[in-house]
């Protein structure tokens, strides 16, 4: 059962806004905040269950942050490999991580797909920095094992 959107929005708006503020500064965070929740609203009826909504909305927000940074990067400046272009997009990571347990999958995607810090991933998953670190490394170990 998917919770009413009001409940979902009420539970996550402040932390999503804080996350956007840290990444983009207050002014740009406001636009991206609105776009994040409008996208969530558009996709909401297609959700199959109400689990991991926090990780889901952080994934939407993270993608928009990447778009926003890419869009507004000053012309002529060298691309920063680490934070943006060098990372596999969610689309690339999604099929690779499809068999992981949900929490490990979210941690791996948010860490390696979106370069979120572990404290942010912890916030997204409703746990701690420590737990996020463990989930991501457990996910990576599991992926390595599967590849052998």
């Amino acid at each position, binding site marked *: 059962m998917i919770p*009413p*959107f*009001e409940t979902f929005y009420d539970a996550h*708006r402040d932390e999503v806004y*804080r996350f956007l503020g840290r990444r983009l500064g207050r002014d740009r965070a*406001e636009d991206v905040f609105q776009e994040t*929740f409008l996208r969530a*609203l558009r996709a909401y*009826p297609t959700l199959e269950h109400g689990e991991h909504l926090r990780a889901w909305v952080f994934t939407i927000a993270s993608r928009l942050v990447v778009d926003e940074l890419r869009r507004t990067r000053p012309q002529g400046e060298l691309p920063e490999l680490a934070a943006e272009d060098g990372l596999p997009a969610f689309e690339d990571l999604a099929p690779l991580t499809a068999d992981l347990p949900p929490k490990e999958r979210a941690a791996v995607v948010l860490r390696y797909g979106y370069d979120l810090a572990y404290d942010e991933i912890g916030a997204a998953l409703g746990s701690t920095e420590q737990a996020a670190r463990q989930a991501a490394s457990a996910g990576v170990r599991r992926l390595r094992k599967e590849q052998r």
Partner: protein
Amino acid sequence: MTVSPSLDERFRAAAAAAALLDVAFDVVDDTPIGPLLVGVTEHGVCRISFDADPERHLEVLARRFGPRVLRSRKPVDRVRHELDEYFAGRRRRFDLDVDTRFVSPYNKLVLEELARVEYGTTTTYGALAAKTGNPRAARAVGTVMNRNPIPIVLPCHRVVGASGSLTGYAGGLDRKERLLRLEGVLF
């Protein structure tokens, strides 16, 4: 750092403007019978409740109409305006569509008859039952009134007992009395 009220309002307005909501709701404060929760869909008013605490409605609204239930002021403005006029004695009928799509066929039939009961008049449970084809269904009609999802606009306060006693009202008898007094039925 938390979402400012103005950003919050902007998002809620944008969500409604983009037609992304299954139900938009708001609380209409300052009516003579207390705050009212009002819900609207693209088809019309779907809920008016004397219990104005949204928490107690979100789940039911989501089950009936879809999960995108969000508080948003603008879509409710028209209902708010007509209610204001009604309570000020300046409106005798509502020009609002109602959304009763989840109401069962029998209940819908009764509510349609109810909608014809005019401002400032009353009818009885039995008379309303007779109009829907079964004069002995007064009790069933009472149940439909009790479950009326859109009171005031669908005027179940105008239905009284055969003896003229007010009988009952989901919002409490004092509210019923108040509404009938407003309409000049009671003095």
